[in-house]
């Protein structure tokens, strides 16, 4: 109930936003929504299934490049590019999940970390496709021949896609599938004993998580015109991970709230340049010391 009310307030606020906010504010809001989708993707694999994946930025990047190229080369409408980004990322996520199946805990985390680093290298060096170190210029997204040239124009698009993804992840959370993912997180042996195919669940989580990260990438291309491999490294993964953990691991509200709070925080911190690293570090430490279960843990876990 609380959640539904909050959501409605959020949507209303967001729509009100377009009428009076500057393009800059809308840009930030768009970025925050991409961050939300990224956090939701990571939530699926870490929060629900308990598998540590540290390659989220790589899947995000795959989504961006795929969507960007589909837009650039085929002139495809935005939803096709978006979906393409999600699907390619999901496919590669499936493959990586498959390779990582035998690994556990820290080994799994670190092998995906290595994959992420390798992907960033690939983005930087596969010049004919990604533009390599020059970055890739992305043509504006289109729908029915209409071009989304500004943040304001793209905003309704970004908002609706975000809401749809949020709804899907929420459904996942309350569904049997979600419950069985959590069972794998809690005890693989017990999960198997009640008939859950642990391998398939892990693969599903990996694939869905990468798919959602790819969608986030596609979403990014609807209001951004340029991507550079520098933005797709471990730093980015860490930021997403941080939002999920500080928001509250395993909680949907945590993932969304964490992404919002940290997205805005990051923007606010730009105003205190010389101290921002220290402040950011300090905030992380304090949150872990006094609210390790998440800044929204008091709202109740969902």
């Amino acid at each position, binding site marked *: 109930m609380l959640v539904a009310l909050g959501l409605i307030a959020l949507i209303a606020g967001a729509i009100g936003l377009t009428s009076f906010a500057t*393009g800059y504010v809308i840009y930030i809001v768009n*970025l925050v929504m991409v961050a939300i989708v990224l956090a939701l993707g990571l939530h699926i694999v870490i929060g629900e299934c308990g598998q540590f994946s540290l390659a989220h930025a790589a899947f995000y990047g795959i989504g961006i490049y795929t969507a960007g190229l589909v837009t650039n080369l085929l002139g495809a409408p935005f939803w096709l590019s978006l979906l393409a980004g999600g699907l390619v990322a999901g496919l590669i996520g499936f493959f990586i999940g498959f390779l990582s199946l035998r690994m556990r805990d820290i080994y799994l985390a670190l092998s995906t970390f290595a994959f992420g680093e390798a992907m960033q290298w690939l983005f930087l060096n596969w010049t004919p496709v990604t533009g390599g*170190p*020059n970055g890739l210029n992305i043509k504006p997204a289109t729908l029915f021949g209409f071009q989304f040239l500004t943040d304001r124009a793209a905003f309704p698009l970004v908002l609706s896609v975000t809401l749809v993804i949020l709804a899907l992840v929420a459904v996942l959370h309350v569904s049997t599938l979600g419950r069985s993912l959590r069972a794998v997180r809690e005890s693989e042996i017990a999960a198997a004993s009640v008939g859950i195919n642990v391998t398939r669940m892990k693969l599903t989580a990996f694939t869905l998580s990468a798919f959602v990260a790819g969608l986030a990438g596609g979403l990014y291309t609807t209001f951004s*015109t*340029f991507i550079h491999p520098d933005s797709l490294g471990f730093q980015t993964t860490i930021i997403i991970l941080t939002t999920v953990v500080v928001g509250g691991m395993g909680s949907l509200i945590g993932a969304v709230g964490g992404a919002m709070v940290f997205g805005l925080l990051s923007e606010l911190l*730009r105003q205190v340049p010389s101290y*921002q690293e220290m402040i950011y570090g300090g905030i992380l430490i304090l949150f872990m010391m006094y609210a390790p279960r998440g800044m929204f843990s008091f709202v109740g876990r969902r």
Partner: protein
Amino acid sequence: QAPAAEPGLTATTIKIGMFGPLSGPSMAYGFDVVNAARMYFDKINREGGIHGRRIEVVVEDDRCTANDVVAAVKKLVEQDQVFMLNGGSCSAPVVAARDYVVRSGVPWVMLNASGDGALYPPQPNIFGALSISQRAVGGSTIEFATRQLSAKRIGYINHDDAYGAWNLEAARFQAAQNGAELIVESINPAIADVTAPVLKLRAANVDAIIIATYARPAQLILKKAQELNVNKPIVIAVNAIANLRQLVENVGSREAFRNVYIQELLAAAPGSEKLAWVYDLYKQSYPELAAKPDHPQVYMPYGIPPAMVIVRALQAAGPQPTRAKVIAAIEQLNFDSGVMAGPISFSPTDRAGQKASIYFRFDGQAMTPVPGVFASRWTYQGQ
């Protein structure tokens, strides 16, 4: 655009939006560059401003990441309603703001970003390369190696990033023109062990080695070259090595400097008479910063020429400036800053301001200028 009111303009002020890395890992590339431009604007204000208007600056941190550069630019343009932009120290991320700036029509003069990706193909309202463009760096070093050092086989170590891709393009062009062979080793700026590139160049028996990297890898390479007994001439391209004593200390021995040349973009060696006013002004403007170790940062003087460009263009645009007038005025500029090695000039088809560099021979103690100018011949040919 409504002719009545240009944004950022009042009868007494003109608002300029500045941005650069004021924090984080890339801070060294731009923090003091922003400060330098700012102190120059202050100086102009003290001297009466421009056509009776004071320059007002709004500064944003861009963290040298693409998303933050774009956020900073959008905030300056849409929220702060600045008249024009003056910012950007990191090459790859500034490109991210290109399309937006072009669409919004705001004049943008970069700080020290080489920004080749935003300068080629030329855009109507974007100007940059006020320290130098990477294309110019690459071409110039090859010119120097072939003409001055008579090298036929040239070892070329650059970064695997945007910086490196741009300077390599012009280096290849110039090498082909001058009939030299280029052996390229592209490394990651975060490299720890430079044995491989150096040893490979030694084994390839090159006549000279050009190092077009940041300071740390450049110093590691110099040191490694000494350890591996490479006795060919080494040219260090623009890379922020200003403190030459520190350079020698880091490399570990004067031995390593038997045959080393250093490319310089400033009009004279840092610390020389000619640039003294810049450093004095810095001390005056920022006494607290100046008291910190390593301040001003190496790139600090690079902030002056962009500020000069803006001041001159505003002066030329007359008492009723518009963005269009300012853009037209910048296109016409051609002046000697006294800070950079060569003149600063733009044209309707060329948005890169400064192309010249000079060379010193450095023996670990003394710097001896090498006479002559070594220019890049690469030009933008369309895509």
